[in-house]
Each structure stands twice: as structure tokens, then as C-alpha cells.
């Protein structure tokens, strides 16, 4: 599988960007324009598809690189934060009761998304905070 490493890595990074972008745009549409398209089936299914590709490529990379959550702390942090991100995202787009609360969750999810990216870039649980050290 190492033969496909660069392609898989490119797919992973591409789907991370696309996933974040879709989440961002859906939030903008929902919170700024009160639009209905962010929750329309084609948009939702596109988002699910991108996230599934993202997950698959992530699992492939862990096996290729032999770096695993629980063994490698930056990956452990990524997975843990990912779960929190999913929950925040779900509340930010759908489940929170008031528009204000939804906006808050959405912004928190975006911040967390950026922090997860920084953890991935730094290969360090501290992510962007490594710059402060």
C-alpha cells in the first residue's frame, strides 16, 4: 500500500479541506442567510460522502505509516477532538434549540476544526500552541 501513499495522502488532505469548506458554507447559508439549501438532501449527502472518503483515507494512512491512535498521542488527540467536532457540528447545524446557540456551536466547531488541522500539521497534540513553546 505504500505505493499509493502520496495519492492517499492527497485524497485525505483534499477531503479534509472539502469537508471543512462544506461545513463552513452550510453554516454561512444557515446562519447568515437563513437559507434552506444547507439542509437539503443533495448537500447533506455530499457532506456524508466526503466525510466517508476522509475517514477511509485516514484509516489507510494509519496502517501505511503504522501510526495509530492511542499509540501516537497526536492521533489520539485528533480522534478525540474529531468526536467533539462532530457533536458540536451537529448542534451547530441542527440540534441546538435557538439560532443563537446554533451559531455558537457552529463557531466552536469551526475553531476546533482549525485546531485539529494544526495538530495534524504539527504532529503534536498541542497543535498551533507549539508555536508558543
Amino acid at each position, binding site marked *: *500500500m505504500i*505505493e499509493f501513499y502520496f495519492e492517499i495522502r492527497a485524497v485525505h488532505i483534499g477531503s479534509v479541506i472539502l469537508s471543512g469548506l462544506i461545513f463552513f458554507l452550510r453554516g454561512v447559508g444557515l446562519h447568515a442567510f437563513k437559507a434552506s439549501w444547507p439542509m437539503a438532501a443533495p448537500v447533506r449527502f455530499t457532506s456524508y460522502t466526503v466525510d*466517508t472518503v476522509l*475517514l*477511509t483515507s485516514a*484509516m489507510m494512512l494509519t496502517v501505511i505509516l503504522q501510526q495509530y491512535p*492511542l499509540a501516537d498521542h497526536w492521533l489520539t488527540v485528533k480522534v478525540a477532538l474529531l468526536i467533539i467536532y462532530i457533536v458540536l457540528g451537529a448542534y451547530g447545524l441542527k440540534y441546538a434549540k435557538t439560532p443563537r446557540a446554533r451559531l455558537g456551536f457552529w463557531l466552536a466547531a469551526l475553531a476546533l476544526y482549525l485546531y485539529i488541522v494544526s495538530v495534524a500539521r504539527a504532529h503534536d497534540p498541542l497543535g498551533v500552541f507549539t508555536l508558543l513553546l
Partner: protein
Amino acid sequence: MTNTKKLWISLAILLVASFSVLLLMGREIYQKAPPMPEQVVSTAGETIYTRADMELGRRVWQSMGGMQLGSIWGHGGYVAPDWSADWLHREIMAVLNAWAAEEGAENYAALSPERQAALKGRLEGLFRTNTYDPATGTITLAEERARAIEKVSGHYEQLFGNDPAFEPLREAYAMKDDTVPDAEHRKALGAFFWWTAWAAGTERPGDTITYTNNWPSEPLIENRPPASSFVWSAFSVLFLLAGIGLLGWHYAVSHGREEEPHDLPPFDPMRGTVVTPSMSATAKYFWVLLALFLVQILLGAITAHYQVEGQVQYGFELANVLPYSLSRTWHTQLAVLWIATAWLGTGLYIAPAISGYEPPYQRLGVNFLWICLIIIVVGSFAGQWFAVMQTLGLENNFWFGHQGWEYADMGRFWQIFLFIGLVLWLVLVGRALWPALRPGAPGRSITGLLFLSTVAIGLFFGAALAWGENTHISMVEYWRWWLVHLWVEGFFEVFATAVIAFLFTRLGLLKLQTATVAVLFATIIFMAGGVLGTLHHLYFAGTPTVVLALGASFSALEVVPLAYIGFEAYHTFRLSKATPWMERYRWPIMFFLAVSFWNLVGAGLFGFLINPPLSLYYMQGLNLTPLHGHTALFGVYGMLGIGLVLFCLRGLKPELAWNEGLLKVSFWSFNVGLAMMALFTLLPLGTMQLIEAINNGYWSARSAEFMQQPIVDLLVWMRVPGDTIFSIGALALVVFVIGLWVRPRYQGVPTEEEERAATTKARA
């Protein structure tokens, strides 16, 4: 004589005739099975193996998981090689390389094409000639074969031990280190593998085909598909087309006759069903089956991942506690167990609902049976764990450990226990149904058919008890397929047809007479191909050509009714829209529609893809087999099981509002996930293997070199999206069911008047 009576008589004649021929074939297989020699000696008089070695080897093979780790004669797992084909090829190459060395070449590959051809000609006679002497029970082998066996045996002894040099190969085969820790046992294991390879490469006395009908494909000794496989493949297509034509004619003739319009009930006739204590007690069957289903999915993911990382799961060395052979054992066994639990629960639920009679102590029986099932699952799985870990001891393995026969892996004690459990189930269902089976009871015929299919499900598991610890492998295969094919593919199918039709009659959507005739006719059509179709699993299991001919012809007929499944699906769909109150049953019916779809695709198309002898000659044990297995077993019986569970839950909790969103997610995730698994991984990978098997021999399509290619890894990874979506479906279903008990939303049951008014409005 009424139509129904004629059909009953036809069914009886068909079953008597089919089973007589099937039993006759059993006799043929018994008589023509490849012989187990008393001893194998070299021309120099050296004893290579004894019968005791081979029998011990088989017991060792069974204890380590048998068919769940690699395969024998093409039956079993797909990651490790087919041991028969692998041994045969290694022995051949050892002989050829030894001869090449005598000629001063480095190995056979280094020889000129002319010399290679000459040696190949010499090799063919050496392997294919039958040197078994029935009078003494002795197989005599040339010296060069004796040396080659020694070499191959050494390879296997190191492979199944913990030699670090073989670590990469063990990983490629998803084998744990020290699969067989005992050196003597490893040697004996080789004796068994050798015998299966001998039968695959040695011609039957007075014939030009081997004991396994020339299976596996091995061009070096001219093991190629026999003429019979071409002939009967062509005829099987012919029979299929003829069957489709005939059934089409029948549909054309009966079109418009079978369904006279009748007044549909204005309200749900089952809304008044009183839930008796024993019916309530069946709820726990549905909870347990969902738990088993989740565990089965998890084990499936683990099993699939072992194909990528042979001994670990994302850094965790899982093979030390849950090796591939065990995860696959439990995965395949749980598939049958949870689906069977759905059947059992449904039978116990609907029997009192049909008759309106709650026999004394019925609830106690339902609870007792449930406890027995839990004990059987836990007990048999524990036995298998100790067996695969090689701590149970061979003397206990057959009774309490791992029998190694795919889908019939549990120890004999547990099989007997399960058989008793199924008989108990039969008694419980029978006594509750009894008032509805008495002469004069309305719908007695269709109830009788439903009951007969439960009798068959209960009793035909008994086929699992037909073989013993040392029964010839060809006979074990014969009886095993009684269990897997007749029990699962035959009587489950009848039960499925009968129960769906029956439920529609209970809902008043089908007339009893119409449904009875339709179900009886369908049963006759299914059984016409289904009973003797069992033989298509046995083409290459040491059986004579007649098995191949009958198996090919009759199993082609099995596909005939599936070609017309669209009629049934459309009919079901129309009924689901027939009245407003049918909306209550929307999701059970959606799952019944999925049953029809996967019956066509999984059982019909993917089944027939591997069914003709010529196809199966190459495809057996390649990834095209699980393509059919997954899409047919889950697609048909899994979907049906879930549909039945939902139907029973509707009756058990009639006053609750359903979370339709969760069921929608579940339904579509199951279907999309299953389709993705089939189309992204199993079909392309199986096709790649098929081309390799045709070009270079079966051994090559199953070899580590082929299966470890990056493109194969990539295709295996392509399972993740489909499997993830499928798992979401299962989780959504579980959350839905838990919600019915933990967070019930009461909406009340609409009154009869309300439903009547809604129906009147809809009709207007």
C-alpha cells in the same frame, strides 16, 4: 379435486422424488469418494504417511478453525490459500526443480522451453497416475515425490509454527504465530493436506479425470475443466432459459385470473390482536438478535481488516486473543444465529396471534428457550476460542470445540443442544398454532404450510448430526450442504414466502385461497430446483460426474423463480399502498421489498454467476463466492429477519409512534452499504482473481504474491465506505429499537372508526 389439493399432492410427489434422488446421490458419493489409504509408501519402501497421520492431521486442521483459515477443495476462507491447491503446486514445483537440478539448471524456470515441456510431460504421468492398491490400502509414490513431500511438509511445519522466517507469509495468510504449537500435530496436518492434494491430482481408476473432477486448475499436470463441466454448464443455461420460458407462459396464462378484486378491510384487522404473555416475552429475542447482529458486523470488520494487517488491528496485536480464524468463525456463525433468532422470535410471536390461543406454560417455554439459546451461543463460542487457542485438546475438540466445517463449526454437544432447542421451538409454535390447524379452521392450508416450513427448519438442522468425527470429508460435505443449502437456502426460502403471504392474508389484503395457491405454487417451484440444487456445492468435493450433471441442471432451475421476483415485489408494493392504515407497516414492507431486490441480485444474478460447473471450477473460493454469500445471506434473509422483527414490534407496541427517520436511515444504509461492499470490493477483486486463475492456475489466484499486490489492498480498503454506511444502518436500527423501550412516544392506537373514515376518504 380442488386446486389446493392438487398442488399439495404435486408438492408431496416432488419432495419424495427429489429427496430420493438426493439420497441416492449420497450413496454414490459414499461409494465413489477418494479412498483413504492405510499407508503411503515410496518405491524404496519408506513409509511416508499412515492413515492415522492423515486422520490426526484432519482433527488438528479442524481444531485450528478448519475451513475458516484457508480452504480445502475450494470450501472455506479466502485469505489463506486453498491448502489442497497450494500443496499440489508446491509438490509439483519441488519435483520439477529437483529434476531441473539433475540437469544442471538452477531451477525449472531456468530451463529452456523445450526441456520444460519434456519435464512437464513426465510430471503429468507421475502425478495423475493412480497408484492406490485397494487390496492393501497402499498408495505407492515415486522417490522424487517422496522427497518433494518431505520438502513441502517442512514448509508447512514452519508456516504453522513460529519460525520468524515465515512471519511475512503468516501475516499475508492472516495466521497467528504458532497456529499449531505441537510439532507432531504440524507434521500430521501436512499428511491431511497432502491427501486432499493427492485426490485433486490423481485420476480415478479407469478414468481420465481426477477424484475432484480435475479441480483445481493446475496447468502443469493438465488439471483443466473436464468436458462434463462444459457440457453441463451449457445445458444449465439451456434449462434456465427453458424454465424462464415456461414460468413466463404460466404467468401469461394466469394473469388476471389469480387476483379477483375484493373489498379490502377498512381498518387494520390485526389492530385488535391481544398480546399474550408469551408474545410479550418474545421481545427479548429481538433485543438479543440485534446485539448479535452488531457483534457480527464488528467481527466482519475485524475479519476484513486482517486481510490488510494479518495479525494486528491498528497497532493492537489482536491475533493473540482473536485471530482471523476465530473472528471469521464467529462472523459466519452469528449471521445464521441472529437470522435464525429472528425466525424463532417471529414464530413464537405469531403463533398465538394466529390462533388466539395461549397454551399453558407457553411463556415459560419461550423464556426457557431464550436462556438455552444464550447458553448455546456463549458455550459454543467459548469452546471455539479454546480450540483455536489450541488449549482444549484434540480429544475434546469434536464435542466441545471447533469442528472446522464452515457454517457448522460448533462442537457436537452444542449442535445437539441447538437441535433440541429447535425441536422445543417447534413444539412451542405447534401447540400454539394447533387450533388454527384443526380441520375446518379458516386458512388451514396456508397455516399448515407455514407450520411445515417451521417443522423443516426445526428438523433439517438434524443434518448437522449426520457426520461423525472421522467421517469421510466428501460425506461430511454432502451432509453439511444439506444443512447450509437445504436448511438455509431451501426451507428458509419457503418460510420467507409463506410468512410474507401469510401476514398479508392476516391483514386482509390477500384472499386466503389466492395466497394459499400462490405460496404452494412458489414452494413447488423453489423446491423443484432447490432440493437437487444442493449438489451444485459438491461438484469438486470428491464426487462423481453425475453429481456435477444433476447439480448444474437443478440449481439453474433455482434461478427461474428469482427472474420473476419483480412480480412479487410489485405485488407487495401495491398491497402496501392499498389502504391508508397500511402506512403502519411501511417499514416492514420496505424490508420485504428489499428481500425481493436482493433475491434477484444477490441470490439470482450473483448466484448464477458462480453456479455453472465451468464458472465454479475457477470461481470457487475466490471473492466472487462471498459476493454471492453476502448479498444473498444478508440481502435476502437478513432483510427478511429485520422486516419480521419490525412487524412483530408493531404488534408488540401498537400504541407507540415510530421514529421513521431512524428506520429510513437504517433501510437505505443497509442497501447502499451492501451494494457498495459488493461493487467496490468483492466483484472487482473476485474478477481479478478469476482472470488470474484462468491464466495461471487456481493456486496463483489464492497465493500470497497475488493477494498482497497493492491494488488488492486498495480494493480491500474500498470496503470501508460501504461497511461504514452499513454499520450506520445497524446502529440506527438498534437506536430505534432501544427507543421503543427507553424513550417511548405514545400516540395511541387509532380507533376502528378513525381508520374506517380515513379509508373511506382515501377511496373517495
